[in-house]
């Protein structure tokens, strides 16, 4: 699928995400020293440089939650029958790739085996 957004809109999205991502990266690095200069001692900046525990607890679950929300719909297509859903090429290839990802923790191996499985299944089914 190709985007139907005009080039200027795509550039606006690129810049917005770029600026916001940099702001996240710079946030606490910038905070340290800024507060230090104001208060004149290192003690105050130590407490200022930590993420509140409740937020850091939630941040721990962002990677698994977001990545799963991206992967599952791309692999699972709900077919009229249960058998049809479970024997979809992409789901089966995804399951094989998941085992490889689990055993090797390698992006390269996961892509290689996953694509190989997809092509093999497309040939067989």
């Amino acid at each position, binding site marked *: *699928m*190709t*985007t*139907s*957004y005009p080039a200027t809109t*795509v*550039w*606006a*999205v*690129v810049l917005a*995400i*770029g600026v*916001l*991502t*940099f702001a*996240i*990266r*710079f946030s*606490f*690095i*910038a*905070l*340290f*020293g800024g507060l*230090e200069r104001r208060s004149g001692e*290192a003690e105050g900046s*130590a407490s200022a*440089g930590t993420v509140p525990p409740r937020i850091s607890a*939630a*941040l*721990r*679950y*962002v*990677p*698994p*939650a*977001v*990545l*799963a*929300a*991206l*992967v*599952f*719909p*791309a*692999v699972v297509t709900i077919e009229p029958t249960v058998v049809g859903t479970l024997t979809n090429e*992409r789901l089966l*290839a*995804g399951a094989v*790739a*998941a085992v490889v*990802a*689990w055993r090797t923790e*390698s*992006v390269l191996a*996961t*892509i290689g085996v*996953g*694509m190989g499985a997809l*092509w093999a299944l497309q040939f067989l089914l």
Partner: protein
Amino acid sequence: MNVPTELRAGVRDALPLFLGIVPFAVVFGVAAVDAGLSALQAVGLSVFVFAGASQLATIELLADDATLAVVVLTAVVINLRMLMYSASIAPYFRSLAGRSKAFLAYFLTDQAYALSVAHYGALDDATGGSGSGESDASAAETDALSTADRRWYYLGVGVSLWVVWQLGTVAGLVLGTGVPESWGLDFTVPLVFLALLVPAMNDVPTITAGVCGGVVAVVAAGLPLNLGLLVGATAGIVAGLLAERGRR
């Protein structure tokens, strides 16, 4: 100043990571071509954002013509974890000038963070330092000296990964234009996410977060504006927190 040694150590430690970064970057380049982005826009994403998972998600959502707010919000949520890296590495950069801090912050990635903090921790242990980088006044002088060196190690990792990421993007753009649709190369995108997802699910709460996030996202896939993704992600985060509380 011991620039070459620390810079070289950073580059050397980053070398094995290239094996994971290169295919990821190539997949991004191919996906960008698939999504109808221009080569300049794809490289623009790699230069301005420089964060793989969020770049891939952006490409996927733009290809689906998702609402722009959803596109930006999704990318930001994916990159929120860098808040933790920023807070964790900040003490090591404390003595630097503001402009240097901004420059270093730009290269803050999972890999640069993980390698640098491990490296600094080993240095602190070797010199009997505090380990957190928050040294007292008596150690301020040695800290100032090592901060300069530390910056070079971090840059060795960060800049070499940056170069490899940009080259990989361009390689993917070149490759993507020549591959027929029937090869199903778009499937490499969920495979990359899968390769990142599996190691992130390593205990009961994170597995709960992943399974709930994924299942809800499938059920909610029909929602307008591509909200299914955000609904699924939110459900996963809440489920993870609940599972964590349930274990206490």
